[in-house]
C-alpha cells in the first residue's frame, strides 16, 4: 500500500469517471498501478472553517482506512486498500466487481446461500469490534471472490448491542422495503449465518433489533424511512 501525506502537483482527478456524489465524498472510477480502482475523496466543505474542515477530512479518511484494514485482517471481505492520502481526504481501493445483493435478489438468481453469507460477513465484522452504520443490501456486492461489504463511510468502532442491532435492523428494513415477500425467509437465513459466527451473542442482538423496530422513533428506525435507497 502507498502512504503519502501530500498529493501536490498531481491532478489525479483528471479522466476519472464520477460514479457517485454523496454528502461528503465523491466516488470516482479509475486505475491504480494497472488495477481497476475506486477513488473515494472527501471533498472540502466551503461552509466550514478551513482548519476544522481539513482536520475532519483527515481524521475521517484515516478512520475509514483503519476500519477497512482491521476488517480485512479479521477475515471480513472488504475492498482492498491500495493507497491512502489522509490530508487530501483520498482513499484508493479495489473496485469490487459484481452486482449488489439487492440487484441479485431482484434478478431471481439463487440468493439463499448469499443471505447466509451476508449474515456471516456482518457477524465477522461485529466480532472484530466494528459496526457498519449503513448495512443495506445496496452495500453488499456479490463479486467472484464472494459477498463483499462496501462503503464504510459511516462505520464506527463499537461492540455495543445497540449499534450491532442497528446494523441488523437496517438490513432487515432494506430487504423489507425492496423485497417484502422474501423478507422473512431472507432474515431467517441471515440470522443463521450471523449466529454461526457470533454464537450465543447473536440472541441479544436479534432481540434488540426487534425492540428497535417497535420503538419506531429511534435513530435506526428514522433511517429506515429511506432504507433501500442508494447513498454514500
Amino acid at each position: 500500500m502507498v502512504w503519502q501525506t501530500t498529493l501536490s502537483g498531481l491532478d489525479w482527478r483528471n479522466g476519472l469517471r464520477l460514479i457517485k456524489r454523496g454528502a461528503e465524498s465523491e466516488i470516482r472510477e479509475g486505475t491504480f498501478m494497472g488495477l481497476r480502482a475506486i477513488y473515494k475523496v472527501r471533498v472540502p466543505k466551503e461552509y466550514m472553517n478551513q482548519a476544522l474542515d481539513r482536520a475532519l477530512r483527515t481524521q475521517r479518511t484515516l478512520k475509514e482506512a483503519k476500519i477497512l484494514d482491521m476488517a480485512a485482517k479479521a477475515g471480513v471481505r472488504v475492498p482492498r486498500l491500495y493507497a491512502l492520502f489522509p490530508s487530501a481526504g483520498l482513499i484508493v481501493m479495489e473496485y469490487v466487481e459484481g452486482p449488489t445483493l439487492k440487484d441479485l435478489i431482484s434478478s431471481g438468481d439463487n440468493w439463499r446461500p448469499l443471505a447466509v453469507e451476508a449474515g456471516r460477513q456482518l457477524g465477522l465484522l461485529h466480532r472484530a469490534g466494528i459496526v457498519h452504520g449503513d448495512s443495506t443490501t445496496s452495500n453488499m456486492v456479490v463479486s467472484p471472490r464472494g459477498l463483499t461489504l462496501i462503503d464504510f463511510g459511516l462505520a464506527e468502532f463499537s461492540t455495543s448491542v445497540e449499534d450491532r442491532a442497528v446494523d441488523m435492523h437496517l438490513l432487515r428494513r432494506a430487504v423489507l422495503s425492496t423485497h417484502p415477500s422474501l423478507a422473512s425467509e431472507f432474515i431467517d437465513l441471515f440470522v443463521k449465518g450471523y449466529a454461526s459466527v457470533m454464537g450465543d451473542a447473536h440472541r441479544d442482538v436479534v432481540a434488540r433489533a426487534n425492540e428497535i423496530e417497535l420503538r419506531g422513533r429511534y435513530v435506526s428506525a428514522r433511517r429506515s424511512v429511506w432504507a433501500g435507497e442508494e447513498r454514500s
Partner: protein
Amino acid sequence: MATAATPSSLCQGSECLVLGIESTAHTFGVGIARWGSKGPELLRDSRRSYVPKSGGILPREVSQFFSQVAAKVIEEALSLNSISARELDAIAVALGPGMGPQLRIGATVARALAASLNKPLVPVNHALAHIEVARLTTNLRDPVVLYVSGGNTMVTTYVDGRYRVFGETLDMALGNLLDTFAREAHLGPPYVINGVHVVDKCAEGGQMIEGIPYVVKGQDVSFSGILTAALRLLRRGARLNDVCYTLREIAFSAVTEVTERCMAHTGKKQVVLTGGVAANDLLNRKLDMMARSQGGVYAPVPKWYSGDNGAMIALTGLLALMSNITVEPERAYINQMWRLDEVDVPWYGKLL
C-alpha cells in the same frame, strides 16, 4: 398547491378564519390565518415575551406572566385585523412540545374561548407549526428543514404522510447551548442585543482554537460536550473571543453537515431554516453555501416568524381544520413530549 380548494364544511363561508394560540416556552402569541382566494395567508399577530432578569426561564414565573397578558394579547390580535371573535371559524392551540405550566395556560385559554364561542378546537404541534410557516413564507414547498431554537434542534423532511426526523440533538438544543454558554461566561442575560446573539458579538475577532470536540454521530449532533469543553477552555485562560468563535463554528458546522447528509440522502434540493435561531447571519451563510454546493436552493423563514408566534399556530390550525382535524375541548390534553413524527400531515402538497 390547490389554490382553488373550497374551505371545509367547518368554515362559515368561502373564507376560513382561524385564531392560533402559542404558549410553549417564553412567548405568549396570538395570530390569525385566513384561507382566501389565493390559499392560506397570515394576518397580523400579537405577542409578548417573558424576559428573565437573570438566569434562565422559570416555568412557574412565565406561566404567571402568561395568565396576566393572555386576554390583552388576544384582544390585540383581533383588533389589529379588525376582526371580531364571532367571525372566527375555529381556535387552534399549541398543545406541545413545550413546558407544562406554560402549555396549560394556552390550553386553558383556548378551551374556554372555543367553548364560549361554540367553535371547534384544533390541536397543533409546535414544531410542525414552525415548519409550515417556513414552507408558506419561503415558497419552498418540499424542503429539507433545519429547525433550531432554544428547545429544539432537528433535521426533518416529509416522507410518506409525516415529517420524519432524520437527525436531531442527542442532548441539548442549539439555542440552549448558546444561551447557557453566554450565561456561564457572564455574557448575558440578555442573550440577544439588537437582534444579535451575545455569542455572535463575542466571536468577532476570534479565531479557531483546539480543544472543542466536533460531534456528528451518524445523523445526530451532540452539544453537551461542546459546552463542557468550552467552559474548561475559559477556566484555563483561553481568550473569550476565540472560545466564542470556535464553539459557534463547530456547532453551526455540525447542524449544517447533518442537513447536507439529509439532502444527499433524500435527493431533495430545497433547504429551509426555521425556529428561533433562524435569524442568525452566520448560520444562514453556511446553509446557503451548503445548499448551493449540493445544487439546491436555500431560504430562511422571515425574521418575524423565526421566534415563537401565534401566526404559525393559526396557519397550521387552519390547514388541520380544513383536513377535518379537531379535538373535543375536554380531550385537549397538553403533551410536553409530543414528537413531530407522530403527527399526520394530510394537507402536504395539497393545501400547502
